[in-house]
C-alpha cells in the first residue's frame, strides 16, 4: 500500500428538502466546490470514482450513482457504488482510499448523496428501519430510535449515564452549528429545551435525534505524487479501520472488552461486552485505524473528532468505543466539558472545556444526516480543520481547532453493524 492524501472536498448546504435540485445536481454542486478550491486539478486528472447513497427506496432509482457519473462527465472512467447503511459515506471514503493505495488510481473522487425529502418523515423512518432484520426485528415495531433508546437504557443501567448528560451532547452540537452555514439545524438550547421537546422513544426526545436531510458531499483522494502536484496543503490519510457486528442486536455477545493499547483487562473486570450498551464494531474500527496510524493514546494524540452522532446517546457510546475515555465514563466525559469547542459559549458550567473537541461541525444532530453524504461531509470538515481553512470555507473561524494536526472521522451503520474509522493528518 502506498500513502494516500485528501486534496480537496466540497459539500452542499444540508436541508430538510431541496426539490429544486435532484441528486445529480447536488453532487455536481459539491464537486464544483471541490474543483474551485483546487484550481490546478481538472476533471481530466480524475481516474475514476466511488459513489455512495444508502437507500434505493429513497431514490426509487436503481444505479443512481451511474447517473451521477454521467452527469459529472466522468464516463467512461471506472466507477462503482458502495452501500452500507449509515456508514455508506465512510465506506465510500475508504473505498476511494483503497483505489489510490492499491495503485489502481492516481486520483479518485468519492461522492455521496441522499434525497430523503421524497417521502414523509414517518415513511422515511420505515425505509431506515428496513435496515434491521425484516423477519424478526422490523415487524415488532421497526424504528431505529427505538433500538437506540433500548441501548441507552442499558447504558444508563450499567454505568449511571443520565439524560442530562445526553442533553449536553445535543446542546454542544447544535450550538457548534451556529457557526457552520452548511448545517441544517443550528440552535442555542438548554437542558430543559432538550428534555421538554417531544418524547420519541424513552429516554430520547426529538432534540436527541438527527433529522433527515437532502444533501451531497465529495472528497478527492490522490497519490503522493499527484497530491504534491495539485495541492499546497494536502492532508494524509494515515489510518483506516472498519468493524462489524450482528444485524440483530439481540444476538450480540456478552464477553470480554476488546482492549486498546492504553487499556488493560483489569479496567473491565465485571463488564459484559459489548452487550447492547457498546459497539464492538466501533472499537474494532478504532483499534485497526489506531494501529495503522501509530496511535496508542487517542485522547493525547488526536486534536478533534467528527463522529456519527445520529443520537446524542450514540455520541456518548462512541467516546468509549474510540477510547477517548474508558467504557462507562462517556457521560462524565461530556459532563466535564472535554468534547466541547474552546471559546464557544454553551450556557453551561463546564470544568474542562475543549480538551478534545468532538463534532465541531455540529455533527449529524445539527448538520443533518443525508446518509450517503454524511461520512464524506465529516471528511470535508476534517480536511478543512487540518488545512486550517475553516474561516475560508465557513466564513468565520469560531470552529477552527487551533493547530489541528490529527483528526478522526467515524461513520456508523445500523445498530452498529458497519463502523468505519479513518485518521487524517497534516504532514509536517
Amino acid at each position, binding site marked *: 500500500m502506498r500513502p494516500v492524501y485528501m486534496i480537496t472536498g466540497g459539500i452542499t448546504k444540508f436541508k430538510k428538502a431541496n426539490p429544486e435540485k435532484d441528486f445529480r445536481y447536488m453532487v455536481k454542486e459539491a464537486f464544483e466546490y471541490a474543483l474551485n478550491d483546487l484550481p490546478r486539478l481538472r476533471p481530466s486528472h480524475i481516474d475514476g470514482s466511488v459513489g455512495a447513497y444508502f437507500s434505493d427506496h429513497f431514490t426509487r432509482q436503481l444505479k443512481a450513482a451511474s447517473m451521477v457519473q454521467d452527469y459529472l462527465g466522468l464516463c467512461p472512467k471506472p466507477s462503482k457504488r458502495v452501500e452500507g447503511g449509515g456508514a455508506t459515506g465512510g465506506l465510500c471514503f475508504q473505498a476511494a482510499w483503497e483505489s489510490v493505495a492499491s495503485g489502481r488510481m492516481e486520483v479518485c473522487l468519492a461522492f455521496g448523496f441522499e434525497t430523503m425529502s421524497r417521502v*414523509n418523515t414517518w415513511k422515511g423512518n420505515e425505509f431506515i428501519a428496513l435496515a434491521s432484520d425484516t423477519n*424478526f426485528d422490523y415487524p*415488532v*415495531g*421497526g424504528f431505529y430510535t427505538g433500538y437506540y433508546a*433500548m441501548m441507552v437504557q442499558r447504558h444508563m443501567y450499567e454505568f449511571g449515564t443520565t439524560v442530562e448528560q445526553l442533553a449536553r451532547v445535543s446542546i454542544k452540537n447544535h450550538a457548534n452549528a451556529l457557526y457552520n452555514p452548511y448545517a441544517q439545524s443550528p440552535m442555542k438550547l438548554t437542558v430543559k429545551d432538550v428534555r421538554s421537546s417531544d418524547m*420519541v*422513544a424513552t429516554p430520547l426526545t426529538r432534540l436527541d435525534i438527527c433529522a433527515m436531510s437532502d444533501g451531497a458531499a465529495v472528497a478527492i483522494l490522490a497519490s503522493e505524487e499527484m497530491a504534491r502536484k495539485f495541492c499546497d496543503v494536502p492532508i494524509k490519510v494515515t489510518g483506516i479501520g472498519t468493524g462489524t457486528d450482528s444485524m440483530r442486536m*439481540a444476538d450480540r455477545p456478552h464477553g470480554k472488552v476488546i482492549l486498546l493499547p492504553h487499556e488493560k483487562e483489569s479496567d473491565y473486570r465485571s463488564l459484559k461486552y459489548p452487550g447492547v450498551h457498546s459497539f464492538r464494531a466501533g472499537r474494532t474500527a478504532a483499534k485497526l485505524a489506531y494501529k495503522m496510524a501509530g496511535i496508542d493514546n487517542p485522547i493525547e494524540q488526536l486534536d478533534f473528532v467528527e463522529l456519527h452522532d445520529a443520537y446524542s446517546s450514540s455520541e456518548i457510546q462512541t467516546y468509549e468505543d474510540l477510547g477517548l475515555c474508558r467504557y462507562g465514563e462517556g457521560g462524565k466525559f461530556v459532563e466535564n466539558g472535554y468534547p466541547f469547542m474552546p471559546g464557544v459559549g454553551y450556557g453551561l458550567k463546564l470544568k474542562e472545556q475543549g480538551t478534545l473537541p468532538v463534532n465541531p461541525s455540529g455533527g449529524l444532530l445539527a448538520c443533518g444526516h443525508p446518509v450517503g453524504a454524511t461520512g464524506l461531509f465529516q471528511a470535508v470538515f476534517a480536511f478543512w480543520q487540518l488545512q486550517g481553512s475553516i474561516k475560508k470555507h465557513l466564513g468565520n473561524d469560531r470552529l477552527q481547532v487551533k493547530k489541528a494536526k490529527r483528526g478522526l472521522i467515524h461513520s456508523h451503520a445500523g445498530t452498529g453493524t458497519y463502523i468505519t474509522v479513518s485518521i487524517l493528518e497534516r504532514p509536517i
Partner: protein
Amino acid sequence: MNPERPLGRREGKGSKMSAKKASLAETGQGNVLYNLDPIILKWHYEIDYIHSYAQDSPFFAGLSKGKLLGSVCTECHYKFATPRAHCMECGARTEWVELPLEGKVHTFTTCYFGSESFLKETPFTLILVEFKGFQTLFLCRLVGVEPNKVNIGMPVMAKFRRNSKFEATDVYFVPK
C-alpha cells in the same frame, strides 16, 4: 381504457395507417400535483413479495403452537435465543431448542412515534428479553404495563396470539 382499441391506432378497421392521424389515447388518469416550480407530484409505488422464511420456518410454525424456539450449537453448545441455522461462534449447525416462556427485561423503551406502518400502534413498548441459560436476547413487545412502570430485571412471560399471523409479533410478553 378500451382493449379493443390499442394505443396509437385509432384508424377504422382496414383503413390505411395515416401518420398524421396517429395519436396516443387520452386517458382519464392524472397525477396529484403538489407544486409547479419545480414540478413536484405524487408518485405511487407498491409491491407484494413472495417471501420465504426458509430455514427459519420452524420458528414461526412454533409460535402458532405456543412454543418459542431458539438455537443450540451442535459443536460448541452456544445457546441463541433467536433462530440461526448455523452458529455465529463456530460455524457449526445448530439444533432447535425450546426457550423457557419466562425471562427478564434486559432493556426497554416506549415508542411515542414510529415508522409509518406502526404509527397507529403508538405508544408501544419494546423490550429485549434475557432467558436463563441462553447467551443472547430476544426482541419483542411488552404489553399490559404502563410505560413508566417498566424496569430492567422485571420478570416477564410470553403470550401468543390465538390466531397466528406467522409473524414475529405472534409472540409478545406481559409482566409475570
